[in-house]
């Protein structure tokens, strides 16, 4: 019961944080993705035609949604937890009798909620550009939640190690964004030369985007079961690693 109250407190704090600054957190993805859909989907997409049997607009919608989920679930946790460290109110958590798994669960849940909300915003925007019928609702929802969980955990680990605000922007800018763009958001890997197809298979984001695309429009470049297994495997690993870091107090205790 006590842990449930503590968990709810952290989640409520996190949700209040990003909803209070909604012009910075929820509005930008609406603008950015509108531009994606307008430029890539409507203007360029008409000339591209179909990809794997789907119109180009329909093909890119799942990738754009998931890319937004990835970046926002990550950004929420990394910025919030690092700010907590920076302002030293992490000490409130360390002094209090909250188990590490509740702290982790609270912050990650905050990231998941923001990721899912942003996903919904982008889905709503996409409805102005195309009439999308969802192929498998449950699979789509599961992939969104699992992906948000994975990248919220990754953001948490980044924040644990971060010593400055620069440290929390390096991974999103130099790793996450390139991997997302190269993960088949705007193209099918089958369009790439063979060597690049093989290299692309080493990109975990490719699996998540394709699993979500399968859930949304029934088209995928990879085995969806393998995509789910890889995502779950990363979640387990990142969860254990985060708990280890909290236990050792890496970056938060002397």
């Amino acid at each position, binding site marked *: 019961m006590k842990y449930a109250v503590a968990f709810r407190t952290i989640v409520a704090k996190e949700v209040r944080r990003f909803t209070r600054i909604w012009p910075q957190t929820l509005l930008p993805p609406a603008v950015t993705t509108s531009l994606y859909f307008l430029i890539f989907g409507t203007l360029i997409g008409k000339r591209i035609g179909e990809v794997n049997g789907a119109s180009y607009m329909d093909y890119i919608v799942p990738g754009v949604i998931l890319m937004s989920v990835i970046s926002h679930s990550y950004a929420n946790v990394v910025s919030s937890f690092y700010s907590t460290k920076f302002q030293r109110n992490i000490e409130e958590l360390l002094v209090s009798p*909250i188990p590490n798994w509740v702290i982790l669960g609270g912050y990650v849940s905050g990231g998941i909620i923001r990721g899912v909300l942003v996903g919904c915003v982008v889905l709503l925007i996409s409805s102005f550009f195309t009439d999308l019928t969802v192929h498998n609702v449950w699979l789509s929802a599961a992939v969104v939640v699992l992906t948000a969980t994975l990248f919220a955990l990754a953001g948490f680990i980044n924040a644990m190690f971060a010593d400055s605000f620069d440290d929390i922007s390096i991974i999103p800018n130099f790793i996450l964004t390139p991997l997302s763009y190269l993960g088949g958001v705007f193209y099918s890997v089958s369009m790439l030369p063979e060597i690049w197809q093989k290299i692309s298979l080493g990109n975990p984001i490719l699996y998540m985007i394709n699993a979500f695309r399968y859930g949304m429009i029934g088209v995928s470049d990879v085995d969806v079961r393998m995509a789910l297994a890889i995502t779950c495997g990363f979640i387990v690993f990142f969860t254990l690693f985060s708990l280890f870091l909290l236990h050792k107090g890496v970056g938060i205790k002397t």
Partner: protein
Amino acid sequence: MKALSIRKLQKTYAGGVQALKGIDLDVEAGDFFALLGPNGAGKSTAIGIVCSLVNASSGTVKVFGKDLRGQREEAKSHIGLVPQEINFNQFETVKNILLIQAGYYGIPRREALQRAEQCLKQMDLWDKRDTVSRRLSGGMKRRVMIARALVHAPQLLILDEPTAGVDIEIRRSMWQLMREVNAQGTTIILTTHYLEEAENLCRNIAIIDHGEIIENTDMAGLLTRVHIDHFVLDLAREVDRAPHIDGYQIERFADKILHVGVPKANGLNKLFQGLSEKNIEVLSLKNRTNRLEQLFLDLIDTKAAGDQEFFRAE
């Protein structure tokens, strides 16, 4: 019942600095306890370990009998900390800071609201409850930290220099508040650089220096060990030099001011008699140093001298 029991607590930082060299310390339940020491002595490290902000290298810490390692959550639920530096979220309102803290301790929302109201009223902050905390004055921020530490009704309240940087009026009101909290049964451990504060508030005291406890006793007993009191005398007329009176150390500080060391055995009467015989009229007298301050400096100096002897012998 011991509120805090520390055994063989050691901390060596990554750079090799040994901040704590195996200290033992007991604080009885209900006590108002002073933990003093110069900067870098190890008191913040000790408090950091008790509050789970610093990892100990070895040793045990028990809070009301609960081991901080084995029964972590139970031990921590007894502790409230008022840290040295402002560490609450400066973008939250005062009330939310307390509600979040209460939530961390598992207090349901309805009860948390009641406790927050009670603590904020006690700290005279109720009318500021909806103010964003960064807009508060320094003294108010300090009171917010005390209110936050009290919201879960801790049995052990640790105050790490709570009155640093606040004006004398606020400091006095905070002393009154700390007395009230202690009178309600909360054990208090206080670190401070204002030794007058420790002397006024605390019943027992430990002095830590170079990572070791060099004194651990009751305040009254410690103060009886002051053999010389130091006074400042304001004179009616100028004096050219310090008068000589047997048994007293007298220095001329300014034309009309003398500094006098008065051994307890000699008392003040003989001093005034001697001054009167020399036709020196005293207008007023005040303590030059706080008694505890004098003892503290003596103890630290003795320890430093001992260390120097040791190194010379080595």
